[in-house]
């Protein structure tokens, strides 16, 4: 008889393991009617200097600004000028076109890998608009919008995606793992979650030095399960770090729904409560709400009132990456039925509703963005695509491991160069 034989303990209730299961699987008809979506304008906006506990009711609410009538409403309305709104819309459209072009480039064999942020464009774009240009982002792989909003050249992004001769990362990083110090965009890591406490460290550095710049760390719902999430929250709380900690809850971590990261029990924003820091839960498809929340948290951080955890509630409308086919684990029409809508459509409708946009201008702008992306792609492809790479300059593989090349790498470099490419 083994220890595992339950008959030995027949009088005790049988224990059960709970394995969370998403509400809908392929073949099901998604029904989001039970999802509680508060009306726009409903959430109160506390002063940015309030004790963290006064924000905690907002961790189960949903900060929303864009109403069903496409007008902005409520205390969180950032009252942005139309020019800023149009810039955000343009950036979001650019991101989506960029994603589509690069996705297609991967399918055409021009690179190995790509990740879109479809349905989540508003988050990075509005966050970039709300922060100062000098603030530092520690992004995940789905915040390409930060670079685009900050005017990073599209060709540079593509050069990295193609690992071509123009790739400043010298062909060493998986496509989309951008890095650009000058644009306040920290190097993306494929080990999920690592950047979250790093953002806290950067913010601590800024505080040590009496700087006025703040940091913003990013993480997905899935990676909140990593210890790094807890480290980030702990250090941010302990040292009152001037940091914004953003959890993009797009509800899917490859094939695992957010319940596998704990979302059945509490919102991700609610994790702020236990650490005693400010927390906000925000409609991640509402550019104005995102802008307002990030602005709120930035003001709080800048005035030494401490960190804020923000959950952006959204939906990953497409696959995790080019290596993923979501039809294997969720209904294909789920994105269309997602009740918070499409972020680009919502901002466009808002601009139309306030009389600051029209269909013709939208079509013209979209065509311009498309032309810009195509031109960048043409430019980048002149410098090569992935299949042509990795043949020349093999010795460069051994640079930047250390500041100087030690003897053992010099010896291996010689071997590698004489061997050539297999």
């Amino acid at each position: 008889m083994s220890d595992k034989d339950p008959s030995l303990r027949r009088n005790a209730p049988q224990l059960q393991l709970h394995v969370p299961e998403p509400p809908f699987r392929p073949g099901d008809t998604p029904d989001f009617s039970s999802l509680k979506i508060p009306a726009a304008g409903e959430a109160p906006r506390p002063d940015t200097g309030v004790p963290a506990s006064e924000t905690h009711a907002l961790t189960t609410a949903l900060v929303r600004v864009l109403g069903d009538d496409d007008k902005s409403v409520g205390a969180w309305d950032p009252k942005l000028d139309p020019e800023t709104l149009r810039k955000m819309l343009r950036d979001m459209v650019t991101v989506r076109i960029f994603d589509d072009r690069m996705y297609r480039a991967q399918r055409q064999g021009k690179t190995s890998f790509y990740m879109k942020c479809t349905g989540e464009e508003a988050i990075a774009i509005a966050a970039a608009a709300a922060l100062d240009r000098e603030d530092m982002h520690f992004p995940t792989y789905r915040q390409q919008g930060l670079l685009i909003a900050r005017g990073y050249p599209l060709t540079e992004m593509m050069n990295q995606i193609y690992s071509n001769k123009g790739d400043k990362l010298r062909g060493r990083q998986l496509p989309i793992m951008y890095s650009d110090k000058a644009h306040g965009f920290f190097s993306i890591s494929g080990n999920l979650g690592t950047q979250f406490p790093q953002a806290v460290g950067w913010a601590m550095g800024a505080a040590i030095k009496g700087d006025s710049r703040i940091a913003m760390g990013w993480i997905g719902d899935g990676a909140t399960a990593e210890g790094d999430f807890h480290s980030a929250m702990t250090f941010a709380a302990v040292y009152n770090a001037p940091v914004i900690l953003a959890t993009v809850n797009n509800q899917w971590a490859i094939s695992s729904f957010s319940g596998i990261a704990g979302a059945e029990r509490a919102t991700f924003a609610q994790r702020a409560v236990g650490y005693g820091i400010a927390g906000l839960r925000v409609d991640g498809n509402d550019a104005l709400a995102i802008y307002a929340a990030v602005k709120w948290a930035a003001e709080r951080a800048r005035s030494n009132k401490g960190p804020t955890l923000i959950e952006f509630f959204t939906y990953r409308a497409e696959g995790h990456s080019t290596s993923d086919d979501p039809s294997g684990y969720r209904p294909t029409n789920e994105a269309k039925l997602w009740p918070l809508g499409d972020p680009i459509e919502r901002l466009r409708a808002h601009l139309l509703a306030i009389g600051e946009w029209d269909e013709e201008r939208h079509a013209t702008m979209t065509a311009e963005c498309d032309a810009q992306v195509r031109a960048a792609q043409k430019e980048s492809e002149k410098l090569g695509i992935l299949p042509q790479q990795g043949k020349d300059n093999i010795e460069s593989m051994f640079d930047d491991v250390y500041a100087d090349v030690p003897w053992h790498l010099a010896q291996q470099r010689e071997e590698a160069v004489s061997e050539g490419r297999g």
Partner: protein
Amino acid sequence: MPTMNMIQALNDAHKVMMRADEDIVVFGEDIGYFGGVFRVTEGLQKEFGKTRTFDAPISEGGIVATAVGMAAYGLKPVIEIQFADYIYPGYDQIVSEVAKMRYRTAGEWTMPMVIRTPYGGGIFGGQTHSQSPESLFTHIAGLKVVIPSTPYDAKGLLIAAIEDADPVIFFEPKRIYNGPFDGHHDKPVKPWSKHPASDVPEGHYTVPIGKAAVVREGNDLTILAYGTMVHVALASVEEQGLDAELIDLRTLVPLDLDTIERSVKKTGRCLVVHEAPRTSGFGGELVALVQERCFYHLEAPVERVTGWDTPYPHAYEWAYFPGPKRMKRALEKVMAD
């Protein structure tokens, strides 16, 4: 010249560097007001203030990760992991982030930082206060691994590590913090003050990273050791009456292979010594390199003296520790024929 033990020498290195460079920040568990469980950071908070020397939560992953963020900001973190046995929660940040940052960003972001950590056995620390995990770091491209064995070297190497452009894992042999250890645990501890390397100059000096020290010149065989085992090996060869050449590696990566090669070609015999378990220990790498470079000069197989491939057993510490008996047996074997 002041006489210092290793703790005082390391403390002095911090002070010299923190006075010279305002970007240096020191943090770790219990290192602030209290000055660290081994007192290496004593007095730093008082002199440099709480924003440059502070206690960290018990979160090695968080300590390393925030150091990454601070280095990205432009600071120079010198962090303490209280025991090398506690470093594993920070391993992902060290391996995936600290070590690879320069490479993955083609030099755009670099990680000049020092991760100090006491390691090794001989203090009845049991499994979780005695380990020697250096080979987990020598295996990682992008890290430098330094292990001093005297107060003089400890200060000079720590200053060199702080000044280095690359991340340095700095292992401190805690058994010899207060005095050199000859391997005879039943004898009273000799203080550093009786050892010439306790003469530690004031102010700034460096011991270069990547340079081994020939502790004792000799012709019978070459012994490669580091940390506590330098002193154990030295005592053993003297007890055995051998004319051994003893090399203190001081830096494991990048390794001073030239000094090793020159010596083994001269003596024709080689013994590799470390506290860490044998399988996949750094000794395996040393043996491979010695046979690659010196095969036709070797008169006997290269031997290893190491810890056993078991967890570090508390009550059996002196059956585990590679002490005089294991040394004697290996020396006899490598000197046979």
